[in-house]
């Protein structure tokens, strides 16, 4: 029944004036199964775009296309065009390592390396050769921890293990690690789902601050979180991008019936 309600085209304006990333007619298959169907969407620069929808709707698949994380899945095939600025990121000549530095990622479960807090943040700058000496590296680590709102809490224990921090602190450490390599885009896959409400509020506040500098795409199951942190919201359903628009519009006056049902809690 719900399949018949899917719109033939995405409702709302998929284009923006200053896109940092563009996706055009993206299809994704896991083996024979189609996970994303004809998704065209612009990701606006220095804005937060949230991707919402029920489980299995394709929102995480879409997120993972944006820095080719799906390459790690054997039977996954991506069609269509995805560009970062004007560069096609699925171009065979593209090296995914620097791509993933430009398009960083924060995962659902905080996943610090089993190393010191310092080394967690210094890892990226080291492998990408971003610091010429110890002083510069110290500077990057401090600045990144500050921007992630963690410096005050860890300044006196930088050489203790990152895994010893609380869940919320670990997630902020992961954000510090992501921003240490000065990415252009940060992808966040349900970054607060393992955190308590206070830690969640801190991450949300951080997202709000980070959008001054970074383009952020976030997948979330919490509609209130999407409402609180994002400028634009995209609603996915059964692999299709059903509707996209200003977050305030999507949450007060969605145009498509499926979006409305999801937003108002009418899927049961």
């Amino acid at each position: 029944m719900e399949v018949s309600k899917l719109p033939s085209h995405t409702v709302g304006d998929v284009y923006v004036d200053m896109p940092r990333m563009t996706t055009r007619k993206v299809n994704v298959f896991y083996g024979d199964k189609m996970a994303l169907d004809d998704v065209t969407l612009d990701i606006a620069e220095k804005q937060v775009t949230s991707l919402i929808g029920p489980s299995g709707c394709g929102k995480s698949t879409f997120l993972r296309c944006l820095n080719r994380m799906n390459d790690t899945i054997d039977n996954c095939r991506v069609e269509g065009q995805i560009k970062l600025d004007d560069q096609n990121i699925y171009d065979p000549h593209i090296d995914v390592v620097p791509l993933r530095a430009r398009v960083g990622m924060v995962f659902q479960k905080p996943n610090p390396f089993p190393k010191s807090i310092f080394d967690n943040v210094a890892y990226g700058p080291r492998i990408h050769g971003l610091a010429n000496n110890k002083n510069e590296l110290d500077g990057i680590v401090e600045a990144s921890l500050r921007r992630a709102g963690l410096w005050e809490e860890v300044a006196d224990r930088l050489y203790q293990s990152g895994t010893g921090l609380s869940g919320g602190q670990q997630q902020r450490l992961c954000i510090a690690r992501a921003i240490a390599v000065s990415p252009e885009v940060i992808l966040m896959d349900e970054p607060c789902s393992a955190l308590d409400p206070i830690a969640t509020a801190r991450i949300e506040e951080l997202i709000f601050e980070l959008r001054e500098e970074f383009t952020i795409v976030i997948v979330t199951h919490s509609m209130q979180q999407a409402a609180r942190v994002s400028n634009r919201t995209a609603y996915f359903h059964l692999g299709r991008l059903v509707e996209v628009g200003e977050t305030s519009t999507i949450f007060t006056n969605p145009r498509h019936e499926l979006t409305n049902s999801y937003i108002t809690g009418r899927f049961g």
Partner: protein
Amino acid sequence: MQSSHHTSSAFDQDLYEMSEKVRTLANLVERQLNAVTQSLSTLEDKGLDKLIKRDKKVDKLESEIIEQAVEVIALRAPRAEDLRLVLVIQKIATILERMGDYARNTANRTKVILAEGPTIVPVEDLRQMAELTMTMLNDVMAAFDAVDVELAIKVRNGDVKVDKLHTKIHRSVVKAAQNDPDHIIASVHLLFIAKNFERIGDYVTGIAEQVYFLANGELVDEFRPKADKTSWNS
């Protein structure tokens, strides 16, 4: 509006209860308007004190609706059409409460007029004006029930008739007062009563605009026709 149910049935129940309460409030206000019109159009006290006392019920029901709206917003975080419904219900409740105040005020003034003794009262025009506002209230609540924007806009535009009657009554009362300065007090109260009904008509248009917002998620920006000329030199 959506016919399908929320995953949370308690949420459905909350919204249903709020809608029912605002309907009850509208019925109560209509009853108040009807009661004051009975006394005004017969120039006999037909339970004015009871009516004045009953205004407390109107106030209480409005408070209950607002409390419930706050609770639903805090606990359920309604979104989209649900959010609009909650906001619209509490706004309509506030408008209805104000209409109730005007009914009470009209009852107080009617008591003074009756105490003043025989005077010239444009009974027929006042009755017509009052009945018009009651019909408008009825229609606008039907528009709310059915989320019928067309009906809501029709009611909104119909307010010009109330305005015209107000202008007519205003002129006739002023003229009568000039001719019969002994009854100036009653005349002044009559002017206020006519103004009260004119305001009640305006409040109904406010409810009509809420129905529009409920359906469309945006405010009406269309010009509302007006025909109140009482502030012009008559």
